[in-house]
């Protein structure tokens, strides 16, 4: 018999350690090649200058000074859990917002939501929902990161620069040295539509070839993508300019898309920050669908940061619906408008807010007069003192976990990197639930 295939993932961490192949939840790419040096519970990123990675691993250090707080005063964990349960027990309609956590935290969140009849919304929903609407209304052709890395001969980026949100995108996915199908990645055609003031330097190939950049105000994207779709469908347009862009430029782009063997159209939904951006995602889906009549083209909707894809995945399998759902009637309901944090708080429909944010200390709860329970990152500096604050472990730092990557396909294991006295989100939420059942 062979040895077991699965060595344990970093069981006990020695005092000073170099830890290789760490998964980084700093953004939705979940790069899993990060080397972390750990010295007396302080973590340093060793092998990349990715600002998201550094911000994620190097922000948490002063664990000794972190306590649960009730009305701003330090409290025992058990008291804070009791207090949170008491607030929830008296709530008519709790709202659980934020939802920045891993799979295990999200499972526990759904269980608490069911027990309390709560409504659920993720902090990134305004962006994520643009893509979810497109899936629900038209569907799409998409692919995953390794397909892009090996297959894309043309990459069209819509909206932003990608690297601001996903710093290692080009390094990991586009300018790889080798690809699987005899293609030289350095010859990839890179094009941007968006900005207009974005830094496209990362799109310059290792050979020095600059990308094609069609500057376009974000709010003009619906017009421009609409025109591009028409041109790809060989329609005549009664103008030679669209939103200040010469039609000939768009025609040239349409021709390049049609002649590419495997083009990829990438966007971060967060960059498409204008009303009804879901219709632009829908247009992109139609554009991609049309190109697939004759050649191959895939969309690459980039997301997954702060666990937004993770929350949607877990919610979909446990409740049957993606996020912006509610257990208020005892069974899951889905309403992407009514169940938003903003709507719930502004209309007073929700009378208690539970804010969950375990990944990024800077993602604060929204301003509200509703009593608030914050369960989150130990480094959170809360401006408005909530009724209860319970600091919990950071997934992938203080405890193991699982998160979904941007492409919704790959789920990666997160490691425990240091000893921590912080409870996990699951422990806290299960504790609140147990308290409520008493």
């Amino acid at each position: 018999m062979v040895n077991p295939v699965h060595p344990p993932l970093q069981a006990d961490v020695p005092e000073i350690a170099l830890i290789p192949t760490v998964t980084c939840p700093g953004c939705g790419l979940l790069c899993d090649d990060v080397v972390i040096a750990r010295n007396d519970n302080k973590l340093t990123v060793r092998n990349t200058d990715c600002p998201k990675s550094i911000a994620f691993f190097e922000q948490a250090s002063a664990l000794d000074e972190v306590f649960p707080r009730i009305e701003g005063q330090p409290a025992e964990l058990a008291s804070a859990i009791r207090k949170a349960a008491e607030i929830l027990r008296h709530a008519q309609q709790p709202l659980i917002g934020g939802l920045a956590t891993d799979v295990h935290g999200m499972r526990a969140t759904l269980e608490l939501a069911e027990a309390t009849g709560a409504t659920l919304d993720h902090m990134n929903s305004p962006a994520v929902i643009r893509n979810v609407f497109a899936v629900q209304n038209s569907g799409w052709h998409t692919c995953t990161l390794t397909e892009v890395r090996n297959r894309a001969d043309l990459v069209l980026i819509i909206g932003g620069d990608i690297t601001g949100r996903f710093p290692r995108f080009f390094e990991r996915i586009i300018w790889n040295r080798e690809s699987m199908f005899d293609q030289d990645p350095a010859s990839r055609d890179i094009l941007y539509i968006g900005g207009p003031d974005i830094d496209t330097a990362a799109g310059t190939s290792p050979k020095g070839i600059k990308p094609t950049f069609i500057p376009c105000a974000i709010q003009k994207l619906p017009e421009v993508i609409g025109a591009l779709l028409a041109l790809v469908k060989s329609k005549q347009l009664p103008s030679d300019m669209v939103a200040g862009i010469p039609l000939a430029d768009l025609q040239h782009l349409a021709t390049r898309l049609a002649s590419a063997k495997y083009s990829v159209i990438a966007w971060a939904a967060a960059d498409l920050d204008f009303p009804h951006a879901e219709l632009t995602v829908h247009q992109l889906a139609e554009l991609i669908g049309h190109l697939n009549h004759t050649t191959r083209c895939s969309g690459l909707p980039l997301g997954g940061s702060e666990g937004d894809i993770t929350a949607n995945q877990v919610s979909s399998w446990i409740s049957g619906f993606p996020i912006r759902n509610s257990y208020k009637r005892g069974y899951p309901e889905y309403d992407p408008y009514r169940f938003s944090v903003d709507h719930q708080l502004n209309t007073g429909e929700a009378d208690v807010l539970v804010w969950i944010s375990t990944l990024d200390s800077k993602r604060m709860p929204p301003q509200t007069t509703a009593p608030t329970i914050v369960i989150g990152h130990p480094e959170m500096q809360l401006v408005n003192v909530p009724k209860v604050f319970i600091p919990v472990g950071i997934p992938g730092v203080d405890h193991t976990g699982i998160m979904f990557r941007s492409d919704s396909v790959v789920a990666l294991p997160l490691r425990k990197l240091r000893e921590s006295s912080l409870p996990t989100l699951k422990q806290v939420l299960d504790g609140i639930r147990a308290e409520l059942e008493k």
Partner: protein
Amino acid sequence: MLIKLSGGTVYDPAHSIDGKVMDIYIRNGRIVERPSDDEPISLEYDLSGKVVMAGAIDMHTHIGGGKVNIARMMLPEDHRSDPEAHSEFCRAGCGHAVPSTLTTGYRYAEMGYTAGFEPAMLPVNARQTHLEMADTPIIDKGGYAMLGSDDFLLRMLTAKKDQNAINDYVAWTLHATQAIGIKVVNPGGISAFKFNQRFLDLDENNPYYHVTPRDILKVLSRAVYELGIPKPLHVHGNNLGVPGNVETTLKTMGAAEGYPLHLTHIQFHSYGTEGDRKFSSGAAAIAEALNKHKNISADVGQIMFGQTVTCSGDNMSQHRNAGHSHPRKAVVMDIECDAGCGVVPFKYKDQNFVNALQWAIGLEIFLLSEDPWRMFLTTDHPNGAPFTSYPHLIRLLMDKSFRDDAFGRLNLDAQAMSTLNSITREYSLYEIAIMTRAGAAKLLGLHDRGHLGIGAAADITVYTENTDREKMFSTPDYVFKDGELVVRNGKIVKVTWGSTHTVKPEFDRGIEKDLKKYFDTYHTMNMEHFKVSADEISDGGQGRVVVQECKGRREKTA
């Protein structure tokens, strides 16, 4: 604790028991010998007049993983109509075409099913599949890892690696994904689609690798056999849904060259091109070939009329089918140089010629196939219909007049193209027990499931005899899972968590050297992170990995 099930009429085909009145004793979750007379019985159930079978096993049901969850996400309109509220024993969820994981487990159990196997687990998506199955209560589960369009295997074939190396890779995949079997979907076709090929027949080359589906079937079926994996290679053939694909399917049976092969949802692969509309039933030819080829087994993938959604790894076919979607939407994905998927909602209509004939073709295959040990009852959930339609399907098989009535309501042109109402066969309870219990367990290599012999796990379903078989199979009186009463009168009374069945054949770990290089060069994840550990499955106390026996690796082949 000793439980006695007294005087039930037992159908246990694994022991050739066909409707015999017997007592069954359960201790510690297992069926045990009749105890000595002085041993006290803790609990007795009077089952006189009741029908007793092992818990049913669905050997092909899409219950977890990426494509299933995409279907959930894209169909809120379908789920809204079937909410499942929080109750004394059950958590909330929703049902119909693709139920939430919790509701999936409850509803299977309420139908007397105690196991379900996810047949299209993409290796790179295995972690998600297991996460979803871990949140599926009561039933046991397992997954078939999908190979055949993954670039690592195709590169091995192009490089003419020997069978032993392929066997090592197949075994490594089973370990890494915690799978119980291997599936191939549109062999080579998912990869070919990524190179812009739209059809791929059995002897056609993948445009990049110059490897044919026949080559892939040959090495994979042989690998499964040589590794001693009980479950034959699970094959979703080329040309799904294409009129005339009956020829491909018949050739595929031959491509196995005698190695065991399971042709899944064969209904979708049994279409001829006769008639005015160039679409006809190939069921007779398929059934005849199945009767002849003893190395081939199949499940039907019966369609039922109504709204559902098709979730498949076959992105090539699903891209083709997207135009038939209802409601009009489809998701098609190319995935990680590993596989693909396509999710297309469908509404099958009895007045639609093609749908009506598909329905008849499925039933013809069921009724013309002679050996229920090699034929399995599936709707390819949810692709042909949601699994909750099984009791209706059982009645169609067991009740000719019921079937004829349904046939009489079909599109008339479809009726004219089918021989269904001339078939008099009615399945017996014994045959149903073979298809849904004993045969499925035997096929999968689940030695202690699917039967009621001494030592078997006490997964037991008790029905009230009823000539309305749909009613009978919809609401069992009792369902025991590992000896615990989980369902009474068709409703959950206790929630337990089943096991995940796997196989772990021996192999040469030297293959990891090549794999590591491949991952490091081309992939976006580390090879170690690709692997799903048994601990991940048992994490949280809701799961447990059971390793089923492989009969040991046969001698290395020259």
